[in-house]
């Protein structure tokens, strides 16, 4: 059964179609890749799902909900968390506080109970902090939990961002280029973590990624976009040999080896 169903999605920026008539479905429990050359519309698709952009037409359904009826801040409550291509972290907050922001909707306390320091309000915060620490631990960056994110390296911040998304306890995780800026060992570690999240926590993953090796080994299904249109869909092997994909990436009939 499809957990996320995008149908006939179109987004126009002025005269340019960022997405035109794109449809795909993410089955529950899948690890799915969304690939394509730069400017193909991958991030735009993410931004539509998380309601940062309003599509011009089409529909997006998540687990029976029409996402277009929800406001951006309500999406995470439905069980969709994401990371960003160009890191959206609070630079002047510690890593741990950044991660705790992911638990924003799960902490239940009123402004007055917090301000007056009532024990119940604190308990809720403490629990969130514990889970945030665990998430940082899982991503292997618990050593920087008390550091401001402003001064940390890019690869580390990617992990902090992923930890923040996990704290929200999502059912669907949207990862926008999670491996960018990571070295080979870190990419392998990341692949293991993503697979474990799916296998053990049952989190469905939709990822945009340019690292083909990672995409091909991790994803069971891949959707390929080019110039805002879907050009192919299928298993890694199907996609790899699809002429439309090769053309999208390499231009027409040029015998260049696909980087692995």
């Amino acid at each position, binding site marked *: 059964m499809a957990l996320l169903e995008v149908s006939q999605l179109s987004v126009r920026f002025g005269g340019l179609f960022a997405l035109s008539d794109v449809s795909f479905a993410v089955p529950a429990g899948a690890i799915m890749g969304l690939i394509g050359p730069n400017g193909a519309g991958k991030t735009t698709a993410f931004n539509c799902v998380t309601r940062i952009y309003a599509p011009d037409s089409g529909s997006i359904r998540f687990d029976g909900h029409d996402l277009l009826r929800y406001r951006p801040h309500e*999406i995470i409550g439905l069980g969709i968390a994401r990371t960003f291509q160009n890191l959206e972290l609070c630079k*002047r907050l510690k890593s741990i506080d950044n991660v705790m922001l992911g638990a924003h909707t799960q902490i239940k306390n009123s402004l007055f109970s917090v301000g007056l320091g009532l024990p119940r309000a604190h308990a809720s915060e403490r629990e969130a902090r514990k889970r945030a620490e665990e998430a940082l631990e899982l991503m292997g960056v618990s050593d920087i939990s008390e550091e401001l994110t402003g001064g940390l390296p890019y690869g580390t911040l990617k992990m902090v961002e992923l930890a923040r998304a996990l704290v929200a306890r999502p059912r669907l995780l949207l990862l926008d280029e999670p491996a960018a800026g990571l070295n080979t060992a870190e990419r392998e570690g990341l692949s293991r973590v993503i697979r474990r999240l799916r296998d053990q926590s049952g989190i469905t993953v939709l990822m945009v990624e340019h690292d*083909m090796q990672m995409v091909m080994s991790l994803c069971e299904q891949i959707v390929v976009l080019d110039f805002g249109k879907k050009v192919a869909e299928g298993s890694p092997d199907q996609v790899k040999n699809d002429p439309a994909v090769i053309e999208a990436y390499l231009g027409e009939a040029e015998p260049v080896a696909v980087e692995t």
Partner: protein
Amino acid sequence: MPKWLGSYWVTAGVAILALLLPLLPTGSSYFSYMLNLTIIYCIAALGLNLLIGIAGQISLGHAAFMAIGAYSSSLLITKLHVPFLVALPAAAICSGAIGFLMGLPATRLHGPYLALATISFGTALPEMLSRWESVTGGHAGIIVPKPQIGPLILRSDLSLYYLNLVILVFLMWFAANLLRSRYGRSWQSLRESETAAQSMGVNLSLAKTSAFALSAVYAGIAGSLYAHLVGFISPVDFNAFMSSQLLAMIVVGGLASIGGSITGAAALTLLLALLSRSRGWSLIVEGVLVIVTVWFLPGGLVSIGRSLLQWRARGRSRGGHGPAGPASAVRKEVSRHGIARS
């Protein structure tokens, strides 16, 4: 945390100083009056810092919220004979409600546009107060009695000082609690990245309006206490000059910091007192001070103290250089080995 241990002594020192300060045998009523004024500015600056420093929203007409607090509290007491202990929170609520309304445009306006809207508000409100003579007494102002708590009338500046101090400490504690919570995080996420905030479930409109409302509550309390300290209010008390004063306090003291608000309020009130004979000069010195701070000390005065504490803590734990440098991750700006379009 060494930082906490260090600041523990600082906190204790400041507390003792604050308790004993008005007892200094200066023999001058001006001194204790200025101390009271400092505390009141501390409260207003703290509120403004929550809005500007923490939530990253701008308000250039914040004195108007002090006016609302001052007038609502004074009118409740003089016209409706409400006891002080009811009038003060009522003033806070009135001001907070207007602050909430003022936060509504903030959900649509950004940067200079919001600045302009708040300047207009700050300019228009004193004007409205002076025109609404039947209620506010217009330019003639209102004479405000000293606060009365039960049978106790706080006549002396000394007793007022301790009342104001208690309120300030309570409000600092309240703010500190909030900053450590999901509310503080959501406000700070507004400042840093609205995209992130939204995606993590922060309702932007709610976060902005609540920041405005809370900030106005602080200003309203400050305004009410101001009215009772001075004993007389008129619309010109809460003009653009006071708004700019509040802004200067948080910039000089340190944005996004509770300690910074206090430091800045104290420093600028002191400055104002020293240059009180020549008002023109105080404006010039203040302006220069703001520019110099922004240029050379973006963290404000409080950042000096902070780096001193860190320096001491580092000296203490030599060898164990605190948390290890940035983790193993390799800094690589771009490493997209993806297949590029050729």
